[in-house]
């Protein structure tokens, strides 16, 4: 478990005159949020295990501008985007994988018009590809038969029509996947999108993450799986509010796969 992860930076690669196969875009949450850092580490471990030639931008990485754009600040978004594109193109990056659906969506859909053209993958898509290509092996192991429900991140699901990659990974883990009442294209938002993560919600009768957590709890799961650091925070908060943290864990699919492989 304590084996040190190898996460080289693009600058190091450049110094050696090499380019990696893929850039791992960690994202702000993955870099700074204590819970999300664990997801970044789990993903890095899997990349190490599969022997993937990858790098991160490290201190050269910056916010993609997604929260600014959704908040309505197009100036700040485009400033961020253009600066990021300069860095990415400076390293001649062709392929990006990220553990954050918001970064994923922004790169994939909003950067091309600003001159940033990359092959962009969400980590669940990337891991699925590795498994299908035989570069990574996944066994059920400790999650075999466990009751797990999957919360669709809006920016992976509805925003980009990717509902299957995370579910296929869960199937590989041989878990008992139980769908919530609202799932896939009708999945309920966790409440964090559109820059809501960074502000207090408007007055209402209930918090969105509580509504969603209650729905997840109805499936009587051992684990709520998701694929977004912000969904993870919202669902974790929901589980704490419902005092279920002893019986239900909120985990990223990457963590499940890494744990199953005893990484």
């Amino acid at each position, binding site marked *: 478990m304590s084996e040190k992860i190898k996460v080289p930076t693009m600058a190091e690669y450049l110094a050696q005159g090499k380019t990696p196969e893929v850039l791992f875009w960690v994202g702000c949450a993955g870099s700074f949020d204590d819970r999300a850092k664990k997801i970044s580490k789990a993903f890095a471990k899997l990349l190490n295990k599969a022997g993937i030639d990858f790098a991160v931008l490290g*201190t050269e990485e910056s916010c993609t501008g997604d929260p*600014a754009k959704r908040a*309505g600040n197009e100036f700040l978004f485009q400033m961020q985007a253009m600066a990021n594109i*300069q860095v990415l193109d400076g390293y001649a990056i062709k392929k990006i994988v990220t553990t954050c659906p918001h970064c994923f969506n922004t790169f994939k859909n909003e950067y091309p018009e600003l001159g940033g053209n990359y092959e962009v993958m969400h980590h669940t898509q990337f891991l699925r590809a590795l498994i299908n290509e035989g570069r990574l092996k996944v066994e059920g192991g400790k999650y075999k038969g466990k009751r797990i429900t999957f919360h669709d991140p809006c920016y992976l699901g509805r925003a980009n029509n990717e509902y299957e990659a995370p579910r296929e990974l869960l199937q590989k883990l041989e878990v008992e996947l139980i769908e919530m009442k609202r799932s896939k294209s009708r999945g309920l938002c966790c409440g964090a*999108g559109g820059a809501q993560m960074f502000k207090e919600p408007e007055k209402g009768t209930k918090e969105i993450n509580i509504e969603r957590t209650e729905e997840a709890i109805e499936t009587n799961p051992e684990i709520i799986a998701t694929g977004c650091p912000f969904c993870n925070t919202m669902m974790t908060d929901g589980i704490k509010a419902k005092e279920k943290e002893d019986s239900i864990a909120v985990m990223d699919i990457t963590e499940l796969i890494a744990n199953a492989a005893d990484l």
Partner: protein
Amino acid sequence: MQYLPNIIFLIVLVLGIGYFTRNIRKIIRNIRLGQKVDASDNKKERWKNVFRIALGQSKMTVRPISGLMHIIVYLGFVIINIEVLEIMIDGLLGTHRIFSFFGVAYDYLIASFEMLAILVLVAVIVFWLRRNVQRLKRFFNPEMKGWPRNDANIILYFEVAIMTLFLTMNAFDLQLQTLGTEHYVSAGLFPVSRYLLPLIDNYSEATLIIIERTAWWMHIIGILIFLNYLYFSKHLHILLAFPNVYYGKLTPNGKFKNLEAVTREVKLMMDPTADPYAAPTEGMETPAKFGASDVMDLTTIQLLNAYTCTECGRCTNECPANQTGKKLSPRKIMMDTRDRLEEVAANIDKNGTFEPDGKQLLDDYITREELWACTTCNACVEACPVSIDPLAIIMEMRQYLVMEQSAAPTELNVTMTNIENNAAPWPFNQMDRANWINE
């Protein structure tokens, strides 16, 4: 005087269609108050959407019960209208059932109209029960008080009246055919209205003719009134759903429009060789404003969206903010946009051009509280059966608030300052960004 009915029919028809045309032109003028957008791309995909989503009702069936009922009413509406063509010709020429020369085909056509008519009646009654007895929650949101609720019921009453008149007209016609009355050619199969015959068995021929004619006239006049009612109603979707779906968003839901005007400015800012004092290039003027605070700032497609909305509330029903008691309702965003557009249109009708009335879409119709409650989750966009995009309007209004008024909620201003200064929404140092690797 022999041609009096024909002349009256012609006058009624011209009035009915004329007034309708006038209002449709008004709608087109109003929609054109919006910002032009180029949607001449991807014709093939757009037509495919029209066939799949509008004609094929593919998104209606996400909810099986209302979806099935809707398909019945929709098919009934489309198919039974073939009958209207015959009625018009008969009315103008003074003929009766002029298509009857099709023989057996005509028999089955009339039979299918009757079957559909009874199915439509059943579906409409179910719709009425859902609204007024079962009282589904989505029909009772605050924005559904008053006119919107009455409007919905009036539409159902219209449909009941038109279908009932159609069947009545057929029943009396059939009885007259059986009696061999002159002018009433024996044509058509009447699998539904024939069950009404025992009720009118002992009516005299003269009474039968009077009632048949009355039903026939009321049926066609009812249709013309209904046609003209559309403009004042949420029911315009029966026409506008088709162009609206054609112009619907083709890119992934997650792709939000990049503002080109901003791109130019940002490029200029980031270009070290740019001359800040250079005269603006031709055709590159800065837009009057960023984002939208009134309907004229929205695009023509967004205004078409507003006229198309039939207030079904599927969007609001899926909206996470609305479901947790926040004020935001995507349906209300569309209704407000249309109401404000109608207000602007009335202003133009009165003054020739738009005279500022001290009102706008923002604040006077849509509050900031509603706009900031959105999680941009796209549930409303996904739910809309006719490809309306309430989220695009919310985003444009947020852009106005932030870029024109610097009126973002305080916490978001902090977030944005952090992004600017620390390259992350939180106040962490960018230099610590790779620390997680070794922690």
